[in-house]
């Protein structure tokens, strides 16, 4: 390929990267606005994330199919041209890494590493693909663009990861992309059969292509590893004989095949490569399965495993965590949630936080609500709107306002009305349901030094309460007298036919 075209392609690629990086930063900033309807496209139009919540959204399916089709034509372009993590890695490499120099002494000594030919990313991919069908998905810990969101939200986790990215640049380029990234591995597997390839047609064995950031170009065998080549056009122009050719596989592949035949005699390595690659995926899948089972078993025990595996649609779950509004099915929530924590960022009341290990591996980093400072606003749907995977289902406002998060109950020995006979109806006042879920069970006329007053005893109407927690946050007593709980919700559900039917109706609306 001509140098001029290579330079042009590289410039185009940098522009493309800049545009997509700007897009992810923009969507992140927009997601901080509770009224925003923008979802992170890198988490929405993603084949791996789609696996966690397959749904019949034609636009979404068409987009992902388009992405895969494009990969089947062009090769693994996503990593080099689109992926913000790829861009971040490249920026980090640009700052911290020293490009490999062609070292004539090393040229003949070092064949391509086995780990580049059969990257551990394949194992990760296998593990991820298996585990996405369980509640302990590994995807949240390995998806590059979830990490980008964590970095943008400046969470400790994200900053540690960013530090690791910078650190990795001292040891080599795009180490995440070459060895770990399951999304890259998926696109890599697809690009093994892509129509267009980058091949080496002529070679002077100078070793200039050793600078390939993905370690994909191998002049010894005169081939490029299609599953690693991200079409970066970064170094190809330094090839003194203009030997690189990007074209249909027949043209690009012929010389490669010839080259490999020459290198290995009559031995055709493709069969062995296929077997090793397959074994990698299979092994990964087994690891994924084991990890997923360990995750499920870690805390709740065999009974829960049983429930999660054999009745995944069940709404019954003994978790005591409050999930974001609209989540009724704990199991599918945990399966779908990719822990990007966009919801944490978008919640204007700041009541969503990431769960630590206290609720087991299954809930790690998944969002839950706390009502210490504030409750879930009755008309706000920020988390539903921002969730890129509909783990928090996007409901209509009316549905959201009917879907309970928990159930409030009053501890009379803490309530100033019951205990001290002081007038206080803050919980009733702030209760947002149109027919208030907090009513005055009885009223009493009382006297005090400043004059007569009405003492109104608050009481929760179970059927109306949606457990938004606003009353809990507003309670002015020294020890909060009204608290929302999941357990009360489960208990009341057992006894209340109306509530159960309301819940069923809600579920029908959602699914």
């Amino acid at each position: 390929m001509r140098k001029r075209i290579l330079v042009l392609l590289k410039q185009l690629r940098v522009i493309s990267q800049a545009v997509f990086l700007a897009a992810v930063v923009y969507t992140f900033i927009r997601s901080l606005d509770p009224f925003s309807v923008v979802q992170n496209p890198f988490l929405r139009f993603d084949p791996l994330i789609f696996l966690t919540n397959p749904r019949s959204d034609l636009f979404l399916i068409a987009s992902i199919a388009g992405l895969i089709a494009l990969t089947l034509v062009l090769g693994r372009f996503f990593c080099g041209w689109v992926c913000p993590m790829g861009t971040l890695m490249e920026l980090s490499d640009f700052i911290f890494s020293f490009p490999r120099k062609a070292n004539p002494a090393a040229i003949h000594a070092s064949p391509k590493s086995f780990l580049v030919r059969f990257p551990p990313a394949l194992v990760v991919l296998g593990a991820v693909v298996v585990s996405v069908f369980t509640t302990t998905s590994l995807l949240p810990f390995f998806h590059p663009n979830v990490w980008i969101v964590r970095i943008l939200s400046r969470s400790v986790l994200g900053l540690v990861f960013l530090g690791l990215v910078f650190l990795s640049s001292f040891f080599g380029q795009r180490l995440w992309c070459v060895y770990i990234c399951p999304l890259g591995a998926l696109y890599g597997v697809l690009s093994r059969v892509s129509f267009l390839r980058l091949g080496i047609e002529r070679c002077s064995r100078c070793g200039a292509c050793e600078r390939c950031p993905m370690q994909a170009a191998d002049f010894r065998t005169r081939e490029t590893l299609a599953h690693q080549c991200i079409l970066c056009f970064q170094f190809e122009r330094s090839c003194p004989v203009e030997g690189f050719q990007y074209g249909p596989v027949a043209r690009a592949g012929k010389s490669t095949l010839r080259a490999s035949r020459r290198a290995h005699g009559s031995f055709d390595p493709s069969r062995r490569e296929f077997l090793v690659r397959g074994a990698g995926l299979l092994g990964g899948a087994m690891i994924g399965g084991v990890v997923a089972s360990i995750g499920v078993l870690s805390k709740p025990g065999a009974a829960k495993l049983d429930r999660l595996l054999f009745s995944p649609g069940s709404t019954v779950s003994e978790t005591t965590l409050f999930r974001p509004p609209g989540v009724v099915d704990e199991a599918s929530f945990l399966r779908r949630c990719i822990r990007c924590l966009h919801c944490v960022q978008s919640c204007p009341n700041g009541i969503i936080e990431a769960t630590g290990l206290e609720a087991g591996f299954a809930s790690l980093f998944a969002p839950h609500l706390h009502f210490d400072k504030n409750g879930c606003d009755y008309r706000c749907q920020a988390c539903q709107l921002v969730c890129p995977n509909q783990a928090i289902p996007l409901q209509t406002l009316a549905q959201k306002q009917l879907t309970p998060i928990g159930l409030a109950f009053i501890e009379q020995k803490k309530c100033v009305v019951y205990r001290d006979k002081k007038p206080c109806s803050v919980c009733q006042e702030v209760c947002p349901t149109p027919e208030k879920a907090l009513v005055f069970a009885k009223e009493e006329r009382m006297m005090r030094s400043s004059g007569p007053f009405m003492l109104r005893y608050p009481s929760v109407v179970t059927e109306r309460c949606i457990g938004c927690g606003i009353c809990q946050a507003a309670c002015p007593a020294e020890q909060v007298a009204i608290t929302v709980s999941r357990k009360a919700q489960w208990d009341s559900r057992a006894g209340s036919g109306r509530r159960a039917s309301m819940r069923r109706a809600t579920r029908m609306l959602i699914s």
Partner: protein
Amino acid sequence: MNIGDASSRQGVARLRGDLFSRGGERQGSADRRLGIALCAGCHYHCAVTRREFLRAAIASSLYLAARRTFPASLVARPDVGIAVGADYEKAVTKAIELVGGITAFVKPGDTVVVKPNIGWNSPPELKATTDPLVVRAIVHLCFQALASKVYVFDRSVANSRLTYVTSGIQKAAEEAGAKVFHVDEITDTMYKRISMPDARYLKETLVNRYVLESDVFINVPIAKNHGEAGLTLAMKNLMGITGDQRGKWHWQLDDAIADINRAVRSKLVLIDASSIMLRNGPTGGSMSYLKRLDTFICASNVVSADVEAARLFGRSPEDLPYIMEGAKAGLGKASGYSVQRSSV
């Protein structure tokens, strides 16, 4: 054509009508129309004599001086003006005109704080918050009276990032030129601690500095039902200028409301009773709780305004202890005040 005394008298009347009454209902509009007609005739058919000019000048400057010195003695204004009209902006303007017009309250160069009720994340049609059209009309009027700055804010009970937007008030007020900002962070720059040793409940409280340092404080509540206070009207609206923990106020709410109103006097009160919320307040949440009245109540004190607004709910001030507390504290008359009604 005789251009003697009659014509110059009409000239003054015209001046008075245009400069001071802004619409001049109380001047007698027929009189005014006549004046304009005659005067227009003057311009075409004759020149103004020196004597005539001097007379007019002296008369108008005397009138001006008198207006400055004894505003109430020359024009008997009602204590409360009530305007009814489906066009909110017109009705608001009318209600304010009835009690003297915005120029009686806002002087050129004044900084004005307009304090609507933006307590809840609720859209305008549910009437849990002051109607944005009302806020916009008032901000417009303030700027017409040459206010230098108009601030609009409320310390919402719900999240103000949501309430300001959902209520439509932020957009409406900003369009009219007001500065809208959030006051949720309790800082020393935003709130000042004041002490009231003779208060019944609030011996000490935090009050918004913008309110304390403004020239004119305009109180623009929406009339609605309220669990503990009975009704939330103009006096209760002042809960939004404090930086205290308001939850505990509820333990002695009537006294707290009266106290904060003694600490901060509302120079102008306009109660939005366009649709009053009859039950399940203060949050509401359904149109079925509303009663449409298209009414706006304007007064220069909170007590009389609240009494009139309470009457719309069929409640007497004796039902609402905080109004009586306010009357006792001398904030305004709970009875025996004059009311003028008008519909537009």
